[in-house]
């Protein structure tokens, strides 16, 4: 390790923050770009499964809450792209990498939302898992990223409560609503567990990322924490977690649980998620059909600048 790199690592070890103008190893920069970019893309694509129910929300209040949530997600995307831009990559470049499939987004958004209870389950489980991933990242070593996460986490936990509130209404509702709630849990349980990534043994890049404090906990640690937190909530709701091996393990002080189907996970990663095609079609269409708008607004801005300069 050369002196520059050593100084960099020592600063991180001491809990210092790296800022955009600071020297950083190329691997640190690249890993961060990948991680922040994927996170940003997840926020963007994440609008779609919930957007799917805005036009069919059951009350005006629920519609407004959902709109506000989706708006927040777009806002999160924006902060994160800005954080990535401080590392020297443009939003357009990241977008193109998403659209051509070179960059990924969270596999969870390749699952469909099929009933209104899914709006509850997404808030409760998916945002719950996201928060579990994100809270430690508020202490990540890269300053702009850490600051973005602070703001995002605050909003996410609000979303999670709203999701849980929907679930509460559902389980206290009619028989059909209770069935919807259970069905949503059945479908979102394992995909939520997958959100923490493959088990530590199979996870690449982990050790280096943890040394750099880009990653603060192992995948399995976070997954366990999520299960431990979520199972009592499911019990409180009167719902059954779809895992016959789920059991409190007194010795470990944790729940034992079944692994998700990792073959499915890798299928989804390879673009074979239930909605992968739909999601990419939607984003590509938005990008292609929006080109004239972006170009038009740009051309106008340039005209205005030219006029202003001519007038000066």
């Amino acid at each position, binding site marked *: 390790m050369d002196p520059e790199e050593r100084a960099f690592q020592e600063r991180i070890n001491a809990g210092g923050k790296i800022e955009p103008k600071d020297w950083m190893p190329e691997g640190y920069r690249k890993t961060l770009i990948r991680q922040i970019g994927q996170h940003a893309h997840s926020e963007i694509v994440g609008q779609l499964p919930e*957007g799917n129910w805005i036009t069919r*929300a059951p009350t*005006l209040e629920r519609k*407004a809450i959902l*709109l506000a949530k*989706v*708006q927040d997600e777009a806002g999160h995307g924006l902060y994160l792209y800005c954080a990535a831009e401080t590392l020297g990559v443009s939003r357009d470049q990241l977008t193109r990498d998403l659209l051509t499939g070179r960059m990924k987004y969270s596999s969870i958004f390749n699952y469909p939302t099929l009933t209104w209870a899914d709006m509850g389950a997404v808030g409760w489980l998916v945002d719950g898992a996201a928060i579990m991933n994100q809270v430690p990242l508020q202490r990540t070593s890269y300053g702009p990223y850490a600051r973005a996460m602070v703001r995002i986490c605050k909003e996410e936990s609000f979303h999670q409560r709203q999701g849980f509130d929907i679930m509460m209404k559902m389980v206290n509702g*009619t028989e059909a609503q209770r069935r919807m709630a259970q069905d949503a849990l059945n479908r979102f349980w394992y995909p939520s567990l997958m959100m923490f990534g493959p088990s530590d043994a199979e996870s690449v890049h982990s050790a280096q990322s943890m040394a750099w404090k880009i990653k603060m906990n192992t995948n399995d640690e976070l997954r366990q924490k999520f299960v431990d937190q979520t199972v009592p909530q499911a019990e409180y709701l009167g719902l059954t977690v779809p895992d016959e091996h789920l059991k409190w393990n007194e010795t470990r002080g944790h729940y034992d649980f079944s692994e998700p189907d990792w073959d499915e996970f890798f299928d989804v990663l390879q673009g074979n998620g239930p909605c992968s095609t739909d999601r990419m079609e939607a984003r590509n269409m938005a990008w292609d059909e929006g080109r*004239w708008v972006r170009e038009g607004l740009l051309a106008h801005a340039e005209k205005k600048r030219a006029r202003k300069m001519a007038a000066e």
Partner: protein
Amino acid sequence: MGDNTLVLGHRVSEWCGVAPVLEEDIALANTALDLIGQTTLWLNLAGEVEGKGRDADALAFRRDVWDFHNVLLVEQPNGDFGQTIMRQFLFDAWHRGYLTALTGSSHTQVAAIAEKSLKEVTYHLERTTDTVIGLGDGTEESHKRMQSALDRLYPYIGEMFFKDAVDEAMISEGIAPDPTSLRAAFDSLLDEVLAKATLTRPDGTFAHKGGKSGQRHSEHLGHILAQMQWLQRAYPDATW
């Protein structure tokens, strides 16, 4: 008022996640959110005035096409982004004028809702004005698309300024303004913005009607309602 904001809010929310640029995703969601918020206020008030125990949700989710009184403009399809923005601009320009007048309403609740809405709508109008100008005076293609959006939507402007029997009654009680009195200010704003946007105001004075009266909506409204109301209709006993 509530039907206008409900239907337009629905249309705008259809853009969720597929706008041309992230800032527009946020802006459109924000517009839809404001419109749905206003809908709740107006329809709750309408339900109170009606006195049959219907709240905003009952009015939004349990009426069929013929009982809706929104203008035809707001149910027009989104089309491309240009059509959506032009529709929004035309509506915002009317909406701001109408709300401004309503802030002086003799009905205190009406005045209060108008006051609150006006702040939001003033911001909407600023934004859509800029976007219409930006795209009208942008590239050749964006200009062409904005001009055809304007041509497409122009015949739906007139209905916003028609005066009917309900208006007459509200005017006489000082609740609401005479819609026809707002046309001149709208027209001069429109001319000003179109000039900056290098767009040409279409000839012709034909104006579609039938939405505000509820007598003849377009076919689009039924499809909007099928989507908007399915869940409430499918599970009539549920609370959400």
